[in-house]
């Protein structure tokens, strides 16, 4: 399942943030990507522009936050080049996906999300 689909399916029950981080294969790197040609953004403004291009280019409507130029968030989560995490309602890490591109798995994340939501919503349903 694609990320966008997972987002659409669960966005009422969970929050989603897409964290735009440093480009993994920009044109000015040793291994530039072929499918899109982007130079590594040098300013936050430019990074925001690329993030927005990326959003539309990948047809993702997940709300986007942009990591700062020191890659604070990306470093904290060891997220390069791409990665999935789920935080629970207590702000603890509930699921940690593998590092992309090899271990990046939307399906794995969706399964975790599904069981997490089921667990979280069950006590509530019983009370009602």
């Amino acid at each position, binding site marked *: 399942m694609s990320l966008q689909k*997972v*987002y659409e399916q669960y966005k009422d*029950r*969970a*929050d*989603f*943030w*897409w*964290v735009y*981080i440093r*480009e*993994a294969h*920009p044109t000015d790197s040793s291994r530039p*990507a072929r*499918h*899109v040609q982007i130079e590594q953004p040098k300013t936050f403004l430019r990074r*925001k522009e*690329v993030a*927005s*291009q*990326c*959003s539309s*280019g*990948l047809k993702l409507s*997940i709300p*986007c*936050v*942009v*990591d*700062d130029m020191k890659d*604070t*968030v*990306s*470093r*904290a*989560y*060891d997220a*390069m*080049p*791409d*990665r*999935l*995490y*789920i*935080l*629970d*309602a207590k*702000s*603890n*890490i*509930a699921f*940690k996906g*593998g*590092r*992309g591109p*090899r*271990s990046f*798995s939307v399906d794995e994340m969706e399964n975790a*999300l599904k069981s*997490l939501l089921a667990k979280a919503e069950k006590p509530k349903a019983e009370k009602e």
Partner: protein
Amino acid sequence: MMRTILTLVVFTLTGHLFAQDPSRRPVDSDGDGKISRKEFSGPGELFQRFDVNQDGFIDEKEREAMRAARRQGGRGGFGGVQGMPMREFFHTLDTNNNQQISKGEWELLCKADDFKKADTDKSGYITPRELFLFLGMGQGDRSGGFRPGRGGARERPDRGPAVGSPAPKVAAKTMADEKTIDLSKVMRTTVLVFGSYT
């Protein structure tokens, strides 16, 4: 653990052979391209270990393995695999260059007990993929994935927060209006998707 063992093995070998003064290094004094037992100044046990095909000479290929052991020793052991690409290590062990490591080749530099562990399909030979997995570089779900010189050897340690630990105290600004979002305090289950365009 494995790395420690390898480091120790390599250290033991190199310690014997090369920690001594240079004149004790094996020298091909008659220039025939291989080292005979006579030309080898180290202990006989070591000679036998390096003479993989047991023909009484350490030939060029076997010398290469010896040099590799020495290089690794100088660099502080089997440098966490970061020091030595998998491919290079495989070729070092594969002294007859048939793309398989036999038991004899393995025992040249590695612990004999580990051969069984590494030879997962019990074929009597270790393939590059088996070595790759044995060295703990096959984590992740890459299938059929031995790509020499790429990936595994450069695997970084994972510094991401573990499941169950509190979310790192970081924040980021939204793309649209630069509102700061505190990612360490969420209201409900939150999915974080990290990525870039490329």
